[in-house]
């Protein structure tokens, strides 16, 4: 759908060759730190930002020469951009009136859309008499009014408070699945991206870092940036010592000792690698576990009890590791300076260093 998009602001290249294919009915999220180009890319798709080279294709037809109003894409801005001098119904019907719909048809459609976003009976309200969540729904309803092929959502939840954000996240996803509408969702919140998307596009400095399902992005990040962008991660540098084929197993020597892992792809002896170990995958115990792979000894430096989990910083031979115990009631609470054993899982993700 997008083909090699380049965009310059003066001499600053903000989109450095973006290519991306979105399948019909899919919800794709653009995520990345601020300034990574995600909103610019969305505006390129919507037709608001001219770009310097590349193609935007929708259903096999190039649309990049078309102004926003002639594209079958509708955008929903971060600040909703609702017309403050109009009522909810007038906002929603704005596009329908321009398309010269009949009065009774407009009314029907507005009722239908209000039902869809659960705002029945609020059609006559002025915009400033609505809560933030309601305004958000109106914005979505307005964008959906002309039955676009693609819905573009620019950080739609960032102006809502935390609890509302969770609810709206679910509702947007449900709505999207029900209407089977292709949706592009921009956010800087990686967890929002993980929880709502079919696929995630991680961007940094105008370049796509990785495209993949939430699980792929989290468990098999393609580089250090992605790994640390989605959740906390322990990195361990090492060198591959041994590669066995049967059973499929490799061994890495690291500052904390030798670690065995099941390789996801081919490694050679001598490869420099980086182990990506998520804090919640490490197991902690007071006594030495019976079966003996990847067991390290360490000392608790800081312990923090957060309720649903306990977070520990553990010193292992001069390396500091973060460990989450997800069921602290089961494992018990470890004290500071306590000597403990760590078990690193064998199915860890390993990056090859260049």
């Amino acid at each position, binding site marked *: 759908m997008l083909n090699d998009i380049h965009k310059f602001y003066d001499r600053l290249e903000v989109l450095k060759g973006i290519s991306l294919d979105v399948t019909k009915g899919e919800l794709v999220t653009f995520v990345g730190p601020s300034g990574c180009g995600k909103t610019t890319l969305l505006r390129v798709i919507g037709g*608001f930002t001219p770009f310097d080279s590349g193609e935007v294709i929708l259903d096999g037809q190039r649309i990049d020469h078309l102004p*926003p109003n002639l594209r079958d894409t509708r955008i929903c801005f971060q*600040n909703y*951009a609702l*017309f*403050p001098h109009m009522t909810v119904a007038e906002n929603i019907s*704005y596009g329908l009136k*321009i398309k010269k719909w009949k009065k009774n048809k407009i009314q029907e459609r507005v009722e239908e859309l209000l039902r869809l976003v659960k705002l029945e009976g609020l059609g006559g309200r002025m915009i400033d008499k609505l809560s933030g969540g309601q*305004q958000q729904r109106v914005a979505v309803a*307005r964008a959906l009014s002309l039955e676009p092929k693609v819905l573009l959502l620019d950080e739609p939840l960032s102006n809502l408070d935390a609890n509302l954000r969770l609810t709206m996240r679910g509702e947007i996803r449900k709505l999207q699945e029900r209407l089977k509408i292709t949706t592009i969702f921009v956010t800087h919140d990686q967890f929002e991206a993980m929880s709502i998307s079919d696929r995630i596009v991680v961007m940094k400095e105008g370049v796509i870092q990785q495209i993949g399902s939430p699980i792929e992005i989290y468990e098999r990040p393609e580089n250090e940036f992605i790994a640390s962008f989605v959740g906390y991660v322990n990195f361990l540098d090492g060198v591959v010592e041994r590669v066995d084929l049967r059973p499929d197993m490799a061994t890495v020597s690291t500052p904390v000792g030798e670690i065995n892992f099941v390789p996801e792809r081919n490694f050679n002896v001598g490869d420099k690698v980086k182990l990506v170990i998520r804090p919640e995958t490490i197991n902690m115990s007071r006594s030495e576990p019976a079966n003996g792979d990847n067991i390290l000894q360490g000392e608790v430096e800081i312990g923090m009890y957060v309720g649903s989990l306990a977070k520990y910083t553990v010193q292992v031979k001069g390396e500091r590791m973060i460990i989450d115990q997800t069921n602290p009631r089961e494992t018990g609470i470890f004290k500071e300076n306590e000597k403990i054993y760590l078990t690193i899982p064998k199915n860890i993700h390993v990056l090859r260093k260049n």
Partner: protein
Amino acid sequence: MAKAEILSIPQRNLWEKIKTFINAELIHILAAILFLLLAIFLLYPILAVLIKSIKSPDGLTLSYYAKFFVKGYYFQSLLNTLMLGFINTVVCLTVGFCMAYLTTRGPLSLRKPLKFIAMMPLIAPPYLFAISLIILFGRNGILTMALGLKWSIYGFSGVVIAQTLAFIPLAYLMIENTLMSLNPNLEESAYDLGASETRIIRTITIPLLAPGILKAGLLVFVMTIAEFGNAAILGGRTPFLAPDTYQMIIGEADFEMGSVLSVILIIPCIIIFFLHSYLLTGKKFTTIGGKPVASEPRKMTPLVKIPFLIISCLAGLVILISFGVVFISSFTRLLGVKNEIVFSHILNFDSNRAIYNSIQVSLIAAFIGAIIGTLLAYVIVRGKFFGRTFIEMVSLSGFALPGTVIGIGYLLAFNTPPIKLTGGIMILALNCVFRFLAVGVEAGISKLHQINIEIEEASADLGANFMTTFYKIVLPIMFPAFIAGFIYTFMTAIVSLSAVVFLVSPGFELAAVKIFDAAAYGEIGIASATTMKLVVIVIFCMVILNYITKKTGFDVSQKKRSVTV
């Protein structure tokens, strides 16, 4: 718990007590003094005009007002003035909107030059346009002769054109400001939903900008009806209130009728002043939040672009030509008649003498004005006493009052003891101080709003008394506002005409009055040369202001006001 003893402030001698009292009450003492000054130099003169208009030798009377409404000439003058205000406002808003739309939404290459031209009249006294129109369309005007025009610039249409050109920047600046604060996403949303550009302007942009446009309109209206110079120079036989007042007082020495005309002129100004402040506080559409997103240049449809461009370019062209001909005329014996280069206008002794006098008066006014303005701003922002808003209103009102009215007020109020000032230089300076106080006060207020009161509290907490805090903390922080107030008052005072025209004494002429007289007697060369000198002085002041803004980061330019004359 043991009963705690009340810690008493140690007894001190009488002097110490007085000092403590002064320190504690200083802000109130200051407020009282400032209010007294405002009462004497702003309220009392206005009151004097009001009294004069209803007082006859045998007590109170409304007979002068009766005469006003009976005698067709006076009433016509009121109608003309209101008509002028109305037409001017509509034209200025239209041109201002077109220019502002292009400079905020149009092609990038166009934005800077167009904005520059739209603001150009700010550096000139408004009556520059009267002079340029005389040069072009006067009886011996270049275009009159070249094209054999029968149309006379002296009259209603001439005044409308000159006034429009003079007040374009005011309308432009205010509309540009509201256009900039309008979230571009709103227009983009409408675009996204299929609206054409004309439809967006009609259904989104203008409705949302309405409060801002209305405010701009009110200001232009007040400025126009109160403006003296253009109407007096170009009015010809068409009566307008402001120049008629002058004619009454200076020509016929009819102070009663002059006062009546002043009161009539003041009424719409006061109504609009209140309407304006009501609009400021009243409900307006908040363009729903978020960060301001830079408006990208968009493809404008020719349907919008072409008429907007034509209107803007036409206005811009006339502005440029006006400056051009006045400049050339300064170095020409009589432009259009005797086209030879001379320096006699520039070197004219009377003109330079008047410029020197104007600088002197304006410097005094600027100094006093900046001090009073700074103190007033402090009292208004930090004071917590009853009547604070009233003081603020009064100190800002000088701006909304027609200059002719204040001029007459000073003439009436300070002509006799106890305060006899007429004929001196001080009456000119004080008049400027209190008329243009608003600028200094507003600069001070906006600066103070940037300073957290906790800075002063911290100083008090560390043991400083009020005096020390004010002297060591407040004044240094407010210094940029003081300088801004100083330069603005200076700039405004030096070109101002409408009030001082009543107050100058024969031996002590001011530049603005000199220009007025020269234009009236057809000495266009001298009028042009003197005007150009004022333009140079104003440009110089703006450069300094710009430098201060850059140096201190205190944006004084946002308080930009059109020059009140």
